[in-house]
């Protein structure tokens, strides 16, 4: 910039406006740059500033005396304020501070998503709980069914054991009762132990005509020529027990079955004899 240019710049009036505080930010920066670059501008600016300061001094108004303490106290109080130490805080120290969350907004977004995720997980948990409960219910039902089955099996095993025990017991003799002329196709097997006096009917092998509801079969033993009641039974096969225990008898020469009114009779109705076996 030539001497004339600098002179023109000084005379443009921008320096005065600068001192009066009537410039934009760019104009301000421009004046400060010019003042740094050219001593003449600096000197001119300084003269204007000095004059204006002196002028402001003459136009000054003395504030109330008690204001001095109030203002100074507010500065002194602020001496302990953190802000006073900003200039002494190095940039490094500030760099060491890592914010936990960069901004409040991001924290809010984080909590929003966390809340949504929680709700989602809760729904999944509830569905899973219902499904698991149904499965548990199913399992319980199957377990009960299996237990029932198991009980049936064990009962069957016991029954079979009893049957086997009878067949293994040498004191038992199998007595095959054969059909009378009245019912030649009928047959019945009775096991009797003269030693233990027990009498059982092999229900799995009953071949007797069905009786009506009012009648039942009755087993008799003939001991010393007299019929002895050994109990009544139905001709229907009983799944629970293949061997039906009857009343005991110590001695018998023959076994016979008659059809009697339901509940049995004291004496056999000889005309209704279905099967008989003599020892």
């Amino acid at each position, binding site marked *: 910039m030539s001497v004339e240019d600098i002179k023109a710049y000084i*005379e443009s*009036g921008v320096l*005065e*406006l600068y*001192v*009066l*505080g*009537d410039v934009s930010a760019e104009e301000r920066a421009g004046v*400060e740059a010019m*003042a*740094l670059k050219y001593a003449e501008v600096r000197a001119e*600016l*300084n*003269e*204007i*500033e*000095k*004059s*204006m*300061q*002196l*002028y*402001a*001094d*003459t*136009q*000054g*108004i*003395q*504030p*109330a*005396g008690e*204001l*001095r303490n*109030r*203002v*100074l106290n*507010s*500065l*002194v109080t*602020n*001496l302990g304020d953190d*802000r*006073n130490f*900003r*200039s002494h805080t190095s940039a490094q120290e500030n760099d060491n501070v890592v914010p936990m969350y960069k901004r409040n907004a991001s924290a809010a977004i984080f909590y929003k998503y966390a809340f949504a995720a929680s709700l989602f997980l809760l729904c999944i948990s509830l569905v899973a709980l219902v499904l698991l409960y149904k499965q548990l219910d199913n399992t319980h039902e199957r377990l009960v069914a299996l237990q029932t089955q198991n009980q049936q099996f064990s009962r069957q095993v016991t029954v079979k054991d009893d049957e086997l025990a009878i067949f293994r017991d040498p004191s038992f003799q199998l007595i095959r009762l054969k059909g009378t002329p009245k019912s030649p196709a009928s047959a019945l097997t009775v096991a009797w132990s003269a030693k233990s006096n027990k009498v059982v009917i092999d229900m799995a092998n009953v071949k007797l005509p069905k009786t009506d509801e009012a009648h039942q079969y009755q087993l008799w033993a003939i001991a010393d020529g007299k019929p002895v009641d050994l109990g009544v039974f139905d001709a229907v096969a009983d799944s629970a027990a293949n061997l039906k225990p009857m009343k005991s008898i110590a001695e018998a020469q023959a076994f016979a079955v008659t059809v009697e009114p339901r509940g049995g009779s004291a004496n056999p109705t000889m005309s209704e004899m279905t099967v008989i076996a003599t020892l």
Partner: protein
Amino acid sequence: MANKQKLSLTEEDLVTALQRHEKVAADALYDMYSSSLYGVIFRIVNDTPTAEDVLQETFIKIWHSSNSYSTQKGRLFTWMINIARNLAIDKIRSKNFKNQNKNQDIENNVSAIDKQNNTEFKPELLGVKDLVETLRPEQKSILDLVYFKGYTHTEAAEKLEIPLGTIKTRLRMAIQQLRKHFN
């Protein structure tokens, strides 16, 4: 206060102490500049309690932003008076102040006149009377509008109904007169 020696430092020492936040800087700052700054603030807000608040805010701001000032930018006072002027203008533009001021206009004007009559006389400076003779009334009114009331030269041109170029010329002439006067 009257029996206390007013504190005064060279501008260089003051700036150094201020930027170190030494207590002596606070005292010197107030003693050296409070009346000049208060003069500007009072002319803008025109109300004693408000002017006192703004003066306090001004010193607090000077104190806390002292590190943004550099001697390369010019004189300390130029920087400070800008702060005072801006805070005072912010204050009168705030809603609170506008509402409150409606009811107190007359009272304030009276106190304003009282205060202005109380203008401090400093023997080390040339007399106010001489100064008034130095500046022509039209120069002084423009200078005061811009420097003390915070008008831009465009606003001053509108208010005084004078062309913008004339405003600029008068401002420069006024300051030239002051320079001659103080030298």
